[in-house]
């Protein structure tokens, strides 16, 4: 009853906002943290670019974009995240939701957004369930799209493609047939699928899995884990980390002069601040990433340069809020309406060349995975700089380096 009343109120107020020729977009993210900061920065760039050009054209009229800052605090609290979504819908009367980061929180945020039938373009969470919901109950969840990153299963495909390339280099350099891999994954729901995939696929790739270590996502000390990994003789540490433990791993591997090289997902390692946070010890740590000054799409280099010029740092993948807003703009302009159902139908069948991906969506409203289109890139920290090294066919890639043996 209350939910129905709130929904009715939201719909009334929403149409009022549209009548005022303003498209209100909530940018949802943990704003006190880097992820939220980049959510907001990417959105600001899109807003300013659109508004400077006069706005979004809807049926011959121009609509200005207005951003609403929705601080979800989702790293600390899932209830805070759902409260933030309720607040931007009912109080701020936004038309569209963009952002989210932590899968556990975004799953809950998705429910609230779908209750209100709000278009929600996800930029940050990887868990497959978000897309599975669309497939299993299309009428309820069709307003959800995942703009970045690819779902966890596809992240795994990218990880193994790069792992294959690193494995070949180790076979050649160290003259070994089966490189030894230690899996170091934080204990979190989003890592479960990736761990299972690694344990299944790595032996098939002629690599030996020497063990699985699962520290807490917020562990500040992983010396015991690294000591055990060192003892196992691992040549690759396959990291699946999103929390601050990624910094501890990078720093403490460097302090211990480990001969193994770290490859995988290390969200902290994607940030420009990583090198400082790891006190300059994270040499050769490598991670999946989205942005670098390489010609991944025709828009990547100009975007990264403009972002760096404006914010004095390189974007992380949550800055793909820029692409989400541009996808929305294209859909509204092509359909000539802000009707969510028509926007959904348009996004489902269109291809969008963004700054971080060439995006097309499948029946789950997930990105269709393809190397060089949506797979992202791989980067390695070398002497304080994040050096892109994969996919090799993209212009601007540099060699991957191994620690001295």
């Amino acid at each position, binding site marked *: 009853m209350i939910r129905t009343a709130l929904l009715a109120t939201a719909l009334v107020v929403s149409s009022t906002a549209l009548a005022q020729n303003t498209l209100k977009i909530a940018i949802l993210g943990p704003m*006190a*943290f880097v992820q939220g900061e980049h959510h907001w920065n990417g959105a600001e760039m899109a807003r300013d670019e659109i508004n400077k050009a006069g706005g979004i054209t809807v049926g011959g009229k121009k609509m200005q974009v207005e951003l609403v800052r929705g601080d979800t605090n989702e790293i600390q609290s899932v209830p805070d995240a759902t409260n933030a979504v309720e607040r931007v819908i009912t109080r701020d009367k936004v038309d569209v939701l963009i952002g989210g980061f932590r899968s556990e929180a975004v799953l809950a945020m998705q429910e609230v957004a779908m209750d209100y039938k709000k278009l929600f373009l996800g930029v940050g969470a990887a868990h497959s369930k978000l897309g599975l919901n669309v497939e299993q109950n299309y009428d309820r969840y069709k307003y959800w799209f995942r703009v970045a990153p690819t779902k966890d299963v596809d992240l795994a495909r990218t990880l193994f493609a790069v792992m294959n390339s690193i494995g070949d280099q180790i076979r050649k350099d160290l003259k070994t047939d089966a490189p030894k891999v230690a899996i170091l994954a934080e204990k979190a729901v989003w890592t479960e699928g990736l761990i299972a995939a690694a344990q299944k696929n790595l032996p098939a790739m002629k690599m030996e899995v020497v063990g699985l*270590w699962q520290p807490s996502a*917020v562990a500040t000390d992983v*010396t*015991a884990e690294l000591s*055990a990994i060192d003892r196992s003789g691992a040549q690759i540490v396959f990291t699946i980390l999103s929390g601050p433990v990624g910094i501890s791993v990078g720093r403490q591997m460097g*302090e211990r002069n480990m001969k193994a090289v770290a490859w995988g997902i290390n969200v902290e390692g994607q940030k420009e601040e990583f090198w400082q946070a790891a*006190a*300059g010890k994270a040499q050769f740590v490598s991670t999946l990433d989205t942005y670098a000054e390489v010609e991944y799409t025709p828009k990547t280099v100009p975007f990264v340069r403009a972002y760096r010029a404006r914010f004095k740092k390189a974007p992380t993948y949550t800055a793909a809020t820029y692409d989400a807003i541009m996808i929305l703009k294209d859909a509204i302009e092509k359909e000539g309406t802000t009707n969510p159902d028509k926007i959904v139908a348009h996004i489902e069948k269109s291809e969008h060349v963004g700054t971080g991906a060439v995006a097309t969506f499948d029946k789950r409203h997930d990105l269709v995975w393809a190397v060089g289109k949506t797979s992202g890139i791989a980067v390695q920290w070398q002497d304080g700089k994040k050096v892109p090294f994969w996919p090799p066919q993209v212009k601007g890639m540099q060699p991957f380096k191994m620690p001295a043996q």
Partner: protein
Amino acid sequence: MLQDILVTGLVNGGVYALLAIGFSLIFGVARIVNIAHTAFYMLAAYCFYTLLVKVQLGFVTAALISVGGVTALSVLCYRLVIEPVREHEAAVLIATIALALVFQELMLFSFGGHYLGIPSTLEGGVRFLGVSIPYQRMLILAVAAAMLIVVWYVLYRTRVGLAIRATANDLEVANLMGMNVHRVAMITVALSVSLAAVAGVVVAPVFVVDPFMWLAPLVTMLAIVVLGGLGSMKGSLIGAIAIGYIEAITVFVLPAGAYLKGAVALAIMVAVLLVRPEGLFGVVFEEER
């Protein structure tokens, strides 16, 4: 594997010991339930980071200012927050929780939720029994040992130490004997927080500095002090080393359950308390008094 456990457990135990000494003094000896103790450790780490990395002062100057500044702040906090409610333990508990949260939010506001790194005071490391040990961790062990000796000396060889132990034993009798119990409590808080600040300066370079870094050590410190026996410095030291070893054994024996190392340590603490409620050295502590 055995040598890895032996070395890793000892080195990590040293980190905990340095943090636990100050907490043992304030919580165990002076019986002031200062939950903000590890928040002062966090403040010292931020202060050291700012002076060393941002202002670019030298290690020694940055360390001295950090320890001195945080200790002075603790005295101010004692006078304003703890002293007015000192006689009500529950009120002290709540007031210091609030104080810690205020510090946390202030750091979140000032520095954001960014994770910050402090350069090591000593670079490099050695290999011992085939295990790599960074010099910074050895420094922590040395500082922990030095702090333990200093605290023991102050408590058992000085008039201030005698006063601290006397007021902790019986506040009213100490007052009747002419001791300025408020001043003694203030000195205890200052001494204890200065140890937390030293820990912040020495330990933070091996960890990551962030506004929530005070929470995990607080739980571990409570476990160590209770495990070792309230008021026993020796118990705290042994408790810290024991927790270090328990965590190392957990990681080596159960690598896929490495995230459980804190929980396993706490479970063992609960088990010890069920068998011996006064902690490992609780009886000795009573005799020492």
